[in-house]
């Protein structure tokens, strides 16, 4: 941590859009230190021993097994990675936190969810916002797995609109307790947790308030039946009813009316960790997919040799590689930002809060991108398996069902898409990210005469980096003009926001992929990285396509006549390759590596 903490000029959240990042400044999975590598092996071993052999049971609503595995995870210290040592945790950095979340989540969504809900939204509100007494009382138990936590925000009438909950907290006449009444829904870990983080409204407050509530059935707490779900069959999801539940005033989290802030900040961490939770799941699907494709023979040929299958394997590997690249890049930014705050005297919780909040945009981007990559990966995994893919006796069916939830919880992907752009605009307004000047520069470029020089792209990935720089101009052009046009009413134009968000997401993912690869080319040589270079190029190729399409949608929706023509011409210029990549050759190269190694080898 120390070596980067003094780099005060590390990128701020959202700044990737307007600043160029040197590849040396991104953290990559190849940068794990020896300790992190050992942690990774440990977690993989744990999963292979405690989860994989019981896959069948996880598909048959074995909630007790989830609890048992969680307890064992606690014994290994996996639940306390992010918790400071003074509260019996390990006090490790954010990268290590992500790494554990990544590798523990790969084999079943049931554990991914139980782990995420417990260590993230179930524990973090207390470590981040709790008083010293609250932390001493609850955190050590949660960090070791003696107790489990759950997070009660959603209600039947309050989902995406999380601040609209009807659950009430009423202060007693002696001022010593609150009485909580209300109904919470979709609560992960409800069936076996010991503590709930509950959000409720006091009187007619504008914002909700957070409380720590111990699970005690004799205190008016009851649970609904286990929900019947599409996937994550052994993750406990139940309604929680509070009926005159008495909570001492000391159990209020932070101040009155601060619950919404707590809820949102806990979700920032939850989102980036959810992205991590979609990584090993992709690797495992690819691993199973390629093993099957190498073995399955049709027309006297292993299906892995067919171009149609190669294309799938290459795309799956590329997306997994991209989501790894971006997740760990952001994780390290957060870790460094926390270190800077700690150095300047902030408390641990303050530093962590601000560190993660700084990158809330990236957290939303990652949540959306990784969950959709995971979904596509599992979907193609089924396709590679053919009819066996559809069978519950083969592993793809569960992977596909389990993947589906990630697009819904921790804020739906729609909400996160809008948040990403919304937060960026807010940051720009506050002056934290200067979008205005770069947007104006793009405007001038649009009306100016384009350069007819032929740039020298002989250096590896140089054209790709130039392309990313141009794609950033597309975002500035589209979003800049849209803001000018609609001002604060932009919020009403959701489809435009969603398009802008897709552009933003693709830029971050493509850039992270290219930077990781460039860094590794410099270290390990071009030859050792030829498949990674191909993946960076393939990812970018799709990103350019998506961005072209989304930008066009946006431009045409709000600009007319000359303005529209000028922007469409700009779009063409900003998305033009000098050397059109041969994507079929790229896919073949990537697929060759995946099939010859018979696993996800990157």
């Amino acid at each position, binding site marked *: 941590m120390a070596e980067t903490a003094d780099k005060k000029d590390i990128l701020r959240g959202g700044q990737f859009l307007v600043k160029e990042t040197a590849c040396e400044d991104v953290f990559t999975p190849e940068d794990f230190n*020896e*300790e992190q*590598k*050992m*942690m990774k*092996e*440990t977690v993989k*071993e*744990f999963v292979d*021993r405690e989860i994989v052999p019981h896959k069948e049971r996880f598909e048959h609503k074995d909630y007790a097994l989830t609890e048992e595995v969680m307890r064992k995870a606690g*014994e*290994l*210290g*996996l639940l*306390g*990675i992010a918790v400071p040592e003074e509260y019996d945790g*390990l006090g*490790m950095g954010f990268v290590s936190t992500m790494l554990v979340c990544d590798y523990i989540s790969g084999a079943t969504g049931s554990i991914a969810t139980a782990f995420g809900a417990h260590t993230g939204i179930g524990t973090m509100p207390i470590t981040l916002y709790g008083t010293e007494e609250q932390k001493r009382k609850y955190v050590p138990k949660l960090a070791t797995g003696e107790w489990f936590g759950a997070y009660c925000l959603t209600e039947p009438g309050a989902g995406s609109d999380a601040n609209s909950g009807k659950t009430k907290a009423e202060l007693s006449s002696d001022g010593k307790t609150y009485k909580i009444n209300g109904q919470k829904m979709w609560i992960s870990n409800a069936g076996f947790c010991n503590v709930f983080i509950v959000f409720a409204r006091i009187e007619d407050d504008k914002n909700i308030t957070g409380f720590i509530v111990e699970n005690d059935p004799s205190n008016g707490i009851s649970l609904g039946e286990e929900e019947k779900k599409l996937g994550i069959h052994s993750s406990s999801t139940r309604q929680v009813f509070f009926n005159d539940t008495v909570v001492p005033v000391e159990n209020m989290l932070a101040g009155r009316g601060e619950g919404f802030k707590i809820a949102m900040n806990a979700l920032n961490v939850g989102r980036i960790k959810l992205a991590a939770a979609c990584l090993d799941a992709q690797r495992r699907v690819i691993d199973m997919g390629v093993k099957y494709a190498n073995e399955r023979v049709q027309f006297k040929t292993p299906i892995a040799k067919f171009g149609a299958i190669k294309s799938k394997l290459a795309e799956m590997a590329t997306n997994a590689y991209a989501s790894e690249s971006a997740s760990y890049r952001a994780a390290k930014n957060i870790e460094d930002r926390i270190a800077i705050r700690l150095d300047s005297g902030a408390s641990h919780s303050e530093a962590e809060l601000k560190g993660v909040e700084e990158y809330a945009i990236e957290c939303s981007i990652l949540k959306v991108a990784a969950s959709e990559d995971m979904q596509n990966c599992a979907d193609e995994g089924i396709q590679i398996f053919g009819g066996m893919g559809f069978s519950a006796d083969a592993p793809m069916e569960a992977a596909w069902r389990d993947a589906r939830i990630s697009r819904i919880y921790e804020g739906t992907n729609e909400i996160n898409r809008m948040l990403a752009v919304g937060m960026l605009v807010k940051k720009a307004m506050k002056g934290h990210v200067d979008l205005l000047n770069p947007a104006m520069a793009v405007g001038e470029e649009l009306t100016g005469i384009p350069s007819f020089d032929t740039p020298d792209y002989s250096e590896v990935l140089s054209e790709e980096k130039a392309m990313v720089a141009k794609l950033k101009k597309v975002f500035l052009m589209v979003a800049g003009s849209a803001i000018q046009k609609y001002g604060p009413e932009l919020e009403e134009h959701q489809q435009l926001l969603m398009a802008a968000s897709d552009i933003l997401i693709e830029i971050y993912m493509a850039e992270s992929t290219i930077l990781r690869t460039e860094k590794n080319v410099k270290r390990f040589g071009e030859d050792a990285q030829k498949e990674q270079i191909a993946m960076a190029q393939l990812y970018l190729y799709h990103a350019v396509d998506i961005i072209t399409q989304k930008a066009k949608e946006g431009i045409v929706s709000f600009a007319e006549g000359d303005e529209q023509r000028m922007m469409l011409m700009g779009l063409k210029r900003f998305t033009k390759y000098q050397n059109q990549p041969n994507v079929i050759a790229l896919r073949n190269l990537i697929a060759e590596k995946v099939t010859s*190694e018979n696993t996800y*080898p990157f």
Partner: protein
Amino acid sequence: MKILVCISHVPDTTSKINFTDNDTKFDTNGVQFVINPNDEFGLTRAMWFKEKQGATVDIINVGGPETEPTLRKALAIGADSAIRINTEALDGYQVAKELSAVAKEGNYDLIIAGRESIDYNGGMVPGMLANLIGASFVNTCISLEVDGETATAIREIDGGKETVSAKLPLVIGGQKGLVEESDLRIPNMRGIMMARKKPLEVKEPQGAEIETKAVSFEKPAPKGEVKLVSPDNLDELINLLHNEAKVI
């Protein structure tokens, strides 16, 4: 009780095996290395002696710096300190000789090695080591108890078991049975963090002479196609074995 566990750094069993330099050298490119399984059974048994009988557990490896992650893992599992003898391990005698210097100096009561390491499967080191330091030796050891100055070990022998009683110091060539697979430990996070702070001493080699040299390696022929014969059609099986495979 002072225990020394010999830890060999070997390719994971699922690794792809290739050779370089005209088939004279194992190609370590892209290979994942692990603690030799036979040594891991021994290490786990050593942890039991540490926890139940207050033993101290040192670990040792003859090898270059690339073997340190394997030693750190053994430290994370619970060994107290590690020694690495800084030289490439080339043959059994050399390794035994290098180990013997440390073993003598450290006055160990018990030296646990694996029956063989799963890379070259030489299986000679523990016996040679015992001889070099003048200790008792039990090979293919599947159970080990120590009471004061006496060890009781069970050996696997053809078709049965042999129970041996031996005076310490003792060297064993251990294997599965010392503990079972389900007893093997995954290092916990605190162990991993502590491993960083535990001593890992690098010692220069004695320079033991190397008596053998690998001339070349060759891989078994790739598996041929599998033919399935129905159990109702034994004539066909005999026909294939006789005329095609020409083995009967």
